[in-house]
């Protein structure tokens, strides 16, 4: 119903266009704005990344069920969105993840066992963000978008944007989800990024579910269009298509590095698993939905394309499967071997300098610990 004064309601706007380069059936299609050619090695690399990351996720979920992890946030179904976004990065780009970005962590060279130690509760995130240009997982929903925007404004002030030097110009990526899009933090980040033209790419994996809340209750308009209201472009990409996600992310990062400001990418995907291992999605969503999205599986469509075009054979997929099994085995083994944290970490790691007060506290603790028949671990 068009209002004579205010115009049409937003939900009546035409259906959004979805950037896609590989259909769910494994057909390669082309898009005028984002046409990229991929070499067979790159395509096989995507397949390998996605398969290994899926195994990483399945193994970690099983480890939680074994009682080895306190919690795990599954990425099942979102492999293409994460590998596409992760592989499009330049080494100098800096990423601010949520707690579900295992695929991006993989692309940044973070050992999967480091993810396990966080979810096992033996540390609070043990990789060095500066070493991987990959911040620690943020549990607070949406908070990392502000960190990313602030970081991007710093990058700008350091003169690392728009110099034309491809090894120097950098972009910052803020990962978040559809649920976070309703958070104040995310909207504030949009405002600041737009106002200061910060070199930040907002990468939203719209996996349709904010725990049990469906996407329909997050937004009346397609998420990527939110960006227009803040004054920067937005684009929706098929998040289950690793090629399209890669191409769109590559272009968005380049745009940010050149100093053209922020952009919002909505990677349209589906959370095939639970929100976390504590959640039971059968209580709030229909199995038909799941079946529908299974047909859009990101790995299956790439495998079909590779095989149909003679770029992968049985030996290749078997190799990757064997590599995945080895990864799973290593994760189990090294997870079991993760050491428990020492109470001394409190005094050793929190402050740079051990003051007299801290030393006294530690001595007091040691005396207390020594009063037990059985040693405190």
């Amino acid at each position, binding site marked *: 119903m068009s209002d004579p004064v205010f115009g049409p309601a937003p939900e009546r706007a035409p259906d959004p266009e979805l950037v896609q380069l590989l259909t769910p059936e494994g057909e390669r299609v082309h898009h005028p704005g984002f046409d990229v050619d991929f070499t067979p090695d790159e395509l096989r690399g995507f397949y390998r990344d996605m398969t290994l990351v899926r195994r990483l996720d399945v*193994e970690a979920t*099983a480890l*939680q*069920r*074994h*009682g*080895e992890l*306190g*919690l795990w946030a599954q990425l099942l179904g979102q492999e293409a969105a994460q590998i596409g976004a992760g592989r499009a990065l330049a080494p100098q780009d800096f990423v601010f993840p949520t707690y579900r970005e295992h695929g991006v962590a993989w692309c940044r060279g973070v050992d999967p066992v480091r993810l396990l130690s966080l979810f096992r509760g033996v540390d609070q995130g043990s990789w060095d963000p500066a070493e991987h240009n990959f911040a620690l997982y943020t549990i607070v929903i949406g908070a990392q978008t502000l960190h990313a925007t602030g970081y991007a404004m710093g990058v700008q002030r350091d003169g690392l944007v728009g110099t034309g030097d491809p090894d120097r110009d950098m972009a910052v990526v803020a990962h978040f989800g559809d649920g976070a899009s309703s958070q104040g933090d995310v909207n504030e980040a949009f405002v600041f990024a737009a106002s200061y033209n910060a070199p930040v790419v907002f990468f939203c994996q719209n996996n349709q579910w904010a725990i049990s809340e469906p996407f329909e209750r997050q937004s009346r308009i397609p998420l990527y269009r939110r960006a227009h209201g803040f004054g920067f472009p937005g684009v929706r990409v098929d998040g289950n298509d690793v090629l399209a996600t890669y191409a769109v992310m590559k272009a968005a990062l380049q745009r940010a590095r050149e100093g053209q400001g922020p952009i919002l990418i909505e990677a349209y995907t589906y959370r095939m698993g639970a929100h976390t*291992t*504590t*959640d*039971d999605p*059968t*209580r*709030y969503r229909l199995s038909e939905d799941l079946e529908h999205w299974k047909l859009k599986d990101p790995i299956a469509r790439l495998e079909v394309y590779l095989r149909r075009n003679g770029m992968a054979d049985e030996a290749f997929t078997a190799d990757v499967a064997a590599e995945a099994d080895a990864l799973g085995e290593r994760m*189990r083994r090294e997870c079991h071997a993760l050491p428990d944290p020492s109470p001394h970490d409190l005094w050793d790691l929190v402050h740079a300098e051990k003051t007299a007060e801290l030393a006294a506290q530690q001595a007091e603790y040691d005396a207390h610990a020594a*009063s*037990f*028949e*059985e040693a*405190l671990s």
Partner: protein
Amino acid sequence: MNEFKLPDVGEGLTEAEIVAWRVKEGDVVAINDVVVEIETAKSIVELPSPYAGHVLALLAAEGDTVEVGTPIIRIGEPDAATAPTSAPTSEPVPPPASEVPTAPAEPPVSSASGTDPIDTNVPPEGNATLVGYGPKQRALKRRARKATPGEVAAVVVPGPVEPSRPARALAKPLVRRLARDLGVDLTALEPTGPKGTVSKEDVLAAAGGVAPGVAAPRVSADPAGRETREPVKGVRKNMAAAMVSSAFTAPHVSEWVTVDATATVELVDRLRERREFADVKVSPLLVVARACLLALRRNPLINSTWDEAAQEVVVKQYVNLGIAAATPRGLVVPNVKDAHALSLVELAQALETLTTTAREGRTQPADLAGGSFTITNVGVFGVDGGTPIINPGESAILCLGAIRPQPWVVGDQVVPRQAMTLSLSFDHRHIDGATGSRFLADVAGLVSDPATALLF
């Protein structure tokens, strides 16, 4: 040989129920093969095996509620299974009670140990322990301190204790409550529990072996197997709590009326023919539901809440119409939100969705909350009527009886008519007999002559 201990699959869960084993003794499992399905307070979860090998023993039965940390399955090489007792080496995991009934340090359990009911709400001390752990681990939470001169362990006297009985009997709070409920004097009992405590069995024995209705044991307590005991939990537990709270806070008045529902039955038949209703179930319940919604409009006090805290009666301008549904897991009362605003077709669809969802056990908590008036349909069981208990937070409930042909006086003739009894219970704190009767008469009038809906 490895034992898989029940993990905390949520965050901070303490127990889970074994729903179904996917493997049996003798099966060969690989790492991450699903071995069992469990239900926690939060979800139903499949557990993958952390070990590869033969299934040597399932240490918990389907339906058991097991504490987190309790071994549930033993996996290893088949030879190890032949050993009569599993002598734990490095890990001090006591063997299951079924094999070794008592740990040495424990006093003998009562003679009925093999068949004693297990109350999952209390630690399984001195009980026919479900699996593994004898005394509850948690009881040993405090670490032993190195003895220093002058310091004596106060209560902790290990081993079978000589009852130098204290004036006040030692017992856990749950046992104390049980004793109070059963009228048993704790100090008069000979304690047989660990460390001189009075155990649940002591109390039950003193009470003549009569277990209270609320205990949650698991299997038959009767040697001949002529009684079975079912745990009170989940939906049943909620139902019990809701009914008790309602029955003993709201003074119920019940009234009933038997009406000639022939016109309603004919209306239902006509509606079924209509295209709008082609895909939806049309039943007398639908017509009665609609009649209630109309009658509530005329008698708004029926659709209200007694707010004890504020000392106010909250009259609602909307109707969230609850339908009591018998599900495989017990009674649930989901409600149709804003039912007053729905057309007949929408109401029919909403009722169908509601009942289907409930029967599939997929009713969400939001659907159960916020009801303002409830209908219960006992007619489907062939029952005529009853005195229903009001759903807590509401003020009235209508019970719909079976429709059956009965002799009816029309004019001077006795003719067969489709008769039905409507029973209404209401909260007499704020609804007087006149209001309740008027509402019931309105509903009855609409059922006997649906055309009078035009008057509302």
